[in-house]
């Protein structure tokens, strides 16, 4: 595989991880524009640990994720009673705070950015993490916590009155989502080998948001399909040169008109699952 193709697949994997990190709070009705901020925390933490403190890559990656998760829970607290555009604004502001913090954080290079990390990220570890996340989300669906999150996004008051501890569930969704984003950041830093705070701005957060909405916000497969397609499309239409971002934008506009719920929805995924099961049973019999 050429270096170019490999880099596309690696960025695709990281995008999947980031989109899933956003999907988790979204599935509980909490839309977050802070994921780029959590990603930055994971990226800088793991990079500082591997470069300056000699910590091996994987522990550093996990520690970066944990620090992002702790921050996520802290952001989750004020976010408990806030919904809709107010929550968007709150998480947006938090993401910008993180960006400005790293812009001024001299141990990590401040405005001139941070380099000197070793290349540790490869297809294997990126897609191993993607695989674990897929397992996590497919097991979450139809489990006790999965139902609780779905019920909350449907009707918070009814969920609370049915005994769901929505405070706890929201903090967990925010924290675990931030953990995933932190992992994504660590992987990114150890592949790009140079990070600077401007990369983790609000536009990046919006990009992850677009992945999730494009693929379909109802199911986690949507976040995956959205990231895959929206990573490939800009590359596939490079021949359009300067017009390619226009093409990219048009794809999104058209999809939102014909299929506002995104490419995949619950009905479609359930249908595919039913079909696959039938095929499986059929094969088993013959």
């Amino acid at each position: 595989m050429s270096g170019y193709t490999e880099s596309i697949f690696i960025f695709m994997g990281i995008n999947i991880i980031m989109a899933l990190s956003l999907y988790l709070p979204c599935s509980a009705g909490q839309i977050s524009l802070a994921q780029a901020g959590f990603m930055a925390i994971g990226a800088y933490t793991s990079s500082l640990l591997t470069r300056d403190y000699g910590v091996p890559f994987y522990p550093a990656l996990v520690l970066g994720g944990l620090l992002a998760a702790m921050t996520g829970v802290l952001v989750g607290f004020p976010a408990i009673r806030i919904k809709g555009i107010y929550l968007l604004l709150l998480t947006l502001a938090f993401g910008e705070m993180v960006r400005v913090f790293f812009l001024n954080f001299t141990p990590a290079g401040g405005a001139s950015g941070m380099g000197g990390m070793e290349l540790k990220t490869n297809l294997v570890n990126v897609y191993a993490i993607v695989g674990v996340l897929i397992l996590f989300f497919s097991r979450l669906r139809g489990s006790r916590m999965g139902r609780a999150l779905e019920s909350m996004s449907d009707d918070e008051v009814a969920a609370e009155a049915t005994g769901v501890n929505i405070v706890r569930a929201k903090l967990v969704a925010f924290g675990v989502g931030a953990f995933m984003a932190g992992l994504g950041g660590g992987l990114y830093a150890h592949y790009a080998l140079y990070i600077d705070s401007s990369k983790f701005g609000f536009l990046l957060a919006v990009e992850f948001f677009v992945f999730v909405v494009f693929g379909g916000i109802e199911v986690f497969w949507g976040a995956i399909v959205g990231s895959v397609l929206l990573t490939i499309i800009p590359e596939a239409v490079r021949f359009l040169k300067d017009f390619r971002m226009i093409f990219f934008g048009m794809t999104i506009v058209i999809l939102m008109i014909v299929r506002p719920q995104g490419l995949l929805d619950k009905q479609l995924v359930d249908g595919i699952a039913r079909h696959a099961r039938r095929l499986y049973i059929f094969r088993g019999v013959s």
Partner: protein
Amino acid sequence: MTLLAIENLVKSFNGFVALNNVSLHVSQGAIHGVIGPNGAGKTTLINIISGILKPSKGRISFNGQPIERLRPDKIVSFGIGRTFQNIRLFNALSVIENVMVGQHCRTTAGLVRNFFRRPFKLLEEENRIQHKAKELLNFVGLSDREQEPARSLPYGSQRRLEIARALATEPSLILLDEPCAGMDIKETTEMAQLALKIRERGVTILLIEHDMNLVMGISDRITVLNFGQNIADGRPDEIRSSPAVIEAYLGF
């Protein structure tokens, strides 16, 4: 024995007094009706008991424990379930999943335990939840519609599903907020029978109703609210002949 004791409850919204010094005692095993004209404060009362609103003043104790400052989910775990006047089901979930959510507070599996379960096998707890949900759907007569989305059910069935969901929290007291609103006579009769069956399960009922006849028919005791005040309290026959109640309802 008193299961739920409400003492001198006051609730005001920016100066508007929705409940003024309401006291009420629900005894174990009873069907206790609360009636009153529109705007009497009935739903506010249920919202306060279930923790969705906090009282301005007053005390509520359940099984002898004060509950007026607790979060709604905590109150559910103490054993108080409820339904809503304007049905609030989880529309994106299937009928059986709606009931299964009710078991949330009686079960414990978190993200980690669920993640590390054995392949192709549900957690033991999950089987129990399903079993319980099926039993309750059978109880309210919705067994044949388990897998349908909740929003596809007709109105009367949605009401019964909401009751099944509340029963899934294993309450010792259930608050029914106008379970017969918008129902015809046949559906109302069925609902009354369901209420009696719920009591047979050992669940005490606090029944809020607009419709006098239903409440009179099945309640052991009735409290009448008007303009946020407790104007009468007693057995159905006492309420029927109470001059204060007749005045509140008929205006003379």
